[in-house]
């Protein structure tokens, strides 16, 4: 029995591997995010400001929102009205949401004033903004899922704004079951996925360099013409 394959078979396999979907995706991912880019142990020396920690603080807030939300989900939507432990977990959920937004907004201000979209980082900025919008939706659906007076009030007020856009036909703030699903499944999944994507984009491009006012020319890969007006 022969254990060595003959050369033509090996060539065929190599050609197949080059075309293979799995292999292509792996090479694409490894090229985009080699380990030292994904988890770098060094940072450029211009990273020298406390403003840089607000992204990490936002992640901390989100982690705590998810953790406390998970405990609330385990016990069900009415638990916190009747249990003092439940009320305490709800309090943690509320305050972690407040901190999540607190840090996220400071992070947004910081990145705005750093013009952090420079150097082909536009998509990083945009995923961040979209995450912010989805977080507002997640917060809103949480408020209307509280099953108390606050949720009754917010739902009956918000319905007019949602209905006016035509979206009310599909997003019914008065439908508790629907709002709870949005709040504990769809929107958290979106926020977590977008946050993950956002972080991977940051790691892919690295942190933006300081603003240079008197630069002249940059090498630019692409097909844009020299007379680019922007």
């Amino acid at each position, binding site marked *: 029995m022969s254990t060595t394959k003959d050369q033509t078979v090996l060539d065929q396999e190599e050609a197949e591997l080059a075309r293979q979907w799995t292999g292509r995706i792996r090479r694409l991912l490894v090229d985009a995010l080699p380990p030292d880019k994904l988890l770098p142990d060094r940072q450029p020396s211009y990273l*020298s*400001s*406390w*403003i*840089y*920690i*607000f992204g990490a603080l936002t992640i901390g807030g989100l982690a705590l929102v998810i953790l406390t939300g998970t405990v609330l989900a385990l016990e069900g939507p009415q638990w916190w009205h009747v*249990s*003092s*432990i439940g*009320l*305490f977990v709800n*309090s943690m959920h509320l305050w972690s949401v*407040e901190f999540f937004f*607190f840090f996220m*907004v*400071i992070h947004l*201000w*910081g990145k705005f004033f750093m013009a952090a979209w420079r150097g082909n980082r536009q998509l990083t900025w945009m995923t961040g903004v979209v995450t912010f919008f989805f977080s507002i939706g997640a917060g809103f659906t949480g408020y209307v899922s509280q099953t108390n007076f606050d949720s009754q009030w917010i739902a009956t007020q918000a319905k007019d704004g949602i209905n006016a856009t035509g979206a009310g036909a599909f997003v019914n703030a008065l439908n508790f079951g629907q709002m709870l699903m949005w709040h504990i499944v769809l929107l958290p999944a979106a926020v977590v996925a977008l946050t993950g994507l956002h972080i991977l984009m940051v790691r892919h491009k690295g942190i933006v360099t300081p603003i240079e006012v008197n630069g002249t020319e940059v090498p630019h890969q692409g097909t844009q013409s020299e007379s680019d007006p922007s």
Partner: protein
Amino acid sequence: MTLSFLAALINLDKPGVFLHWGVIQISLANVIVIGLMVAVFLLAIFIPFDRKSRRR
């Protein structure tokens, strides 16, 4: 289950305090939150991130 030590130390559940300036009406709690955000932002920008004494 009642675990009284979990109860809030400071009761915020009483009629809210609101500030009015012309068209602006805002709860004291929201003013504090927004004010703290601005303050923390300014502190983050101005406090030196001293890497000589503070290796991270």
